[in-house]
């Protein structure tokens, strides 16, 4: 599903040029659950931004669903993104002015789904995330765990093929964190590909494969034992 080859990304200020990604290469198959780990500044978030089509690489190739997307313009990226990718952030990133229902509905609006269909799908996903009773509340009125459940609901409402999660449990206590990880696992078992950036070894254990990064490069890659049979050598 994803194949990146020699991916490069630089950040330049007036004085220094920082290498965020240094000829990074790997593949992710459809239905996989991959965790990306590494210390702060190793390039995890940059990688996720590029994979999420939020940012453009400075070099290398990025093939998404068989299409080379490196060099796509903003409009094309937005189009590809809204149909295929869901995001879950550490800080939830819900829109404070919108209710739970409206936040979840938003991706459907941008993909042009009809109102009746939108209502049906939002209700379904809220039911599934067990947050239906709070549909009319605003984000500030919810606990962190509930907010992240809303964010996950919003990420999956469009049935994306890929979910990108950036430290999804970073702002949560352990029980709420586990709930969110269980949710992601369920989604993965239902067929959604997940790539997750995390600091937490505990969370990483939910995945099939862990990619460890340092200074913009991949250092190790371990396939968790029970999934070895499913994965391919990179």
């Amino acid at each position, binding site marked *: 599903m994803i194949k990146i080859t020699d991916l490069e990304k630089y950040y330049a200020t007036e004085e220094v040029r920082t290498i965020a990604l240094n000829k990074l290469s790997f593949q992710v198959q459809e239905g996989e659950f991959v965790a990306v780990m590494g210390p702060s500044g190793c390039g995890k978030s940059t990688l996720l*931004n590029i994979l*999420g089509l*939020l*940012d453009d690489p400075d070099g290398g190739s990025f093939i998404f669903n068989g299409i080379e997307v490196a060099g796509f313009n*903003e*409009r094309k990226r*937005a*189009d590809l*993104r*809204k*149909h295929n990718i869901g*995001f879950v*952030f550490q800080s939830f*990133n*819900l*829109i*404070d*002015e*919108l209710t739970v229902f*409206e936040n979840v509905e*938003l*991706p459907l*609006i*941008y*993909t042009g789904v009809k109102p009746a269909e939108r209502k049906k799908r939002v209700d379904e996903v809220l039911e599934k995330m067990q947050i239906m009773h709070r549909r009319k509340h605003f984000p500030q009125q919810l606990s962190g765990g509930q907010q992240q459940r809303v964010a996950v609901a*919003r990420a999956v409402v469009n049935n994306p093929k890929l979910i990108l999660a950036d430290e999804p449990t970073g702002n949560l206590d352990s029980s709420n964190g586990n709930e969110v990880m269980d949710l992601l696992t369920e989604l993965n078992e239902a067929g959604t590909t997940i790539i997750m950036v995390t600091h937490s070894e505990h969370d990483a254990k939910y995945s099939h494969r862990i990619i460890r990064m340092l200074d913009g490069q991949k250092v190790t890659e371990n396939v968790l034992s029970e999934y070895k049979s499913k994965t391919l050598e990179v």
Partner: protein
Amino acid sequence: MIKNYIKIAWRNILRYKTNSVLNILGLSIGLVSVMLIALYIQNELAYDTQFDQAAQVYRVNMKGKMGDNAFYAGYTPPPAGQALVDQFPEIESATRIYQSDNTKLAYTNATRSKVFNESEILAVDPNFLEVLSYPLQKGDAATCLQEPNSIVITPQIAKKYFGDADPMGKTLAYGDSGKPLQVTGVFEDLSNYPASLKFDILMPVANFNEVTYFNWSWVWLNMATYVKLTPQASANPATLANLESRFPEMLKVQAAPAFERIGQPFEEFIEKGNYWELHLQALSDIHLYSDGITSSITEQHDVKSLYILGIIAFFIIILACVNFMNLSTVQAVKRSKEIGIRKVLGSQRKQLVKQFMTEVFCYTFCATLLAFITVLLILPMFNGLTGKELDIQAFFNRNLILLILAVVVLTTLLAGIYPAFFLTSFNPIRALKGKVGKTTQSSFIRNGLVVFQFSIAITLIICTLVVFSQLRYAQQKDLGFEKDHVLVINNAETLGNSLASFKKELTALTGVEAASSSSGMLTRGNFGDFYTPKPTADEPNIATDISLSSYLIDDAFIPTLDLEIVEGRGFDKQFKDSLSVILNETAAAQIGWENPIGQQIRYPGGNMEYYTVVGILKDFNLESLHTPIEPFALFAEESKSYDTRTTFISLKISGEHTRQVIGQVQDLWESYLESTPFEYSFLDEDLAYAYQEDQRLASLFMGFSILAIFVACLGLFGLIAFTAQQRTKEIGVRKVLGASVGSIVKLLAINFLKLVMLALILAVPVAWLAMDSWLQDFAYRIDIPIWAFIAAGVLALAIALITVSVQAIKAAIANPVKALRTE
């Protein structure tokens, strides 16, 4: 989608209350200004457009030069109208208007008698209403002025004299003779009728002997003439020009006998470099485009003041938009997360721009509603300021509604486009991290906008100060005569032969220091005619003729008004002064005499008699300082050099117990003249009236300047709030390190004060140029005062400082721990 946009816009308005209030308030102030000024301008432009066939009607103006005196006036000689109709087939009809000085009108029935002085009486030709179709409620426009004893009145006049009874056919007594006039028509309510020619009462001009008497004259300029052209002639500028080009030939023939009679053969008169021309002015141009054309019967405004107001309205709405842009871009940081999320979720920039434009529209919509309500509430006050009678009806005008809609749409675009594109240009990753709005480019634009706003506000402050100091100067200038404590009584001509004894009794009253009578009065007009100085062996090279304005006065006039005689003497009983004249310095200088005393001038318009100069009067201004001092003369009452029908009595009173003094004077008046109302005014008030139009303009100017400054301050308030917020962490760190509140306020305020200083530097030359050109309209004017610039600068800085300090102090006294935690 739109529903979603409106929903989130509405929630944002509610959520960021301060910001919303600043935005909506600023925009609505801008819109209030635009609406008020648009109403005003619309009303001004509507003048004289509502008559039937208004496009065919023209006023005949006279442009002339006699000796050193040039004039351009909305007056013509009495025979001009008929001559034009006779000579030129393009001219269908002509009608004349004459304003008599006699204003007394009385109604007597079995039980009681009502007498008033009516200042708005016009005497007109019988066809007047066929040329200018003022709407009648009762009576027939074609016939109501046919009979000399007819009178047509407004409903207000009807009510005043007859109460609720039907006025038609009732008899009013006019003038001192009490000539009976029968009401033959009643107008519709004309108080809101936008016409430059205003009146309460019309009567046929046939009642006025002086008009008949001067029917021969082509130099007696006391009547206005309006002509109606054929539709073909008025539609075609070329025909019109051709028509005017044939006027001089006609004048040469028609006016010759009259010029011969006053001792100025027309050909010779023209050869001497003089001119005497007739011109046509379109009816619709009279109200606004009569700069330099004298007329006391039409309401003439200067179109320039409309331009000025239009420019002010434009600037205020621009200020409000700039405000909006600035405040919205500073909101960007608060909104950046939302924008980031929307982008991540697949929103395209186009959709975000639409969303923001919808939001801006919600703001302008609220602001428009608020502005509309405000305008309705303050309209009475605005009417007081402008002297208009605008009401809600004025809004229901297609052009006005279209204009306001256009302004709203333009405001939305202007105020919205920059923020919409700025806000949506963020890279979503940066936006999510709140790292936007901190670039040097955007702060440059913001600072530029602040400088722009303050430049406009400061320019307006300077202009307001200069306008007011000019008006103050005009009203306080040593005018060359006493204006305080001088009481002027009108209608003294009614006293007839008892004038002398009345004056004698007046001087006997306590509190009355002097009493005098005169045929003219300052600001109330005068008699003007043509005189020829007599050359002598000593002084042969003098002007051959001079046009003089003059009054006939008694001996007490000069001391009562404290006029200064610089050479010779005033009139005195011990001399026989019936053939004496006193000239002002300008007249003597224009004639060219080195030693004027004892020289003579001849009056060809009278009986060719010679008047000997006995005194020279220090120059003073007869009207307002708008006009330069003209040659002026005083003749003795007993000279009877000409016949005016007005007499004014001026009293110098002590200034104490004014009320009692007036009471006594009134009692005395009533003991002489039971049926003539006692009417008086103070000379200083009359003079102030001459500056009413300037005063109005100045007040409007000031009002809108205050609004502009207020809007600019709203913007500044929002900006400093934003800066303080952006620098929360810095402020926190500085405070932890021991910075005082004062030093933090200084840190935040100093940059803004620099911007205001820069604005001041930009505003000074603009204001100087604008005011220099405005002051050119005054014959006597102040030098542009330096203090106005300093005061405006100090004022702007002070206002800015206060605005900035409020926010800066708030930021500086906040708990630093909280400040640090927010990052």
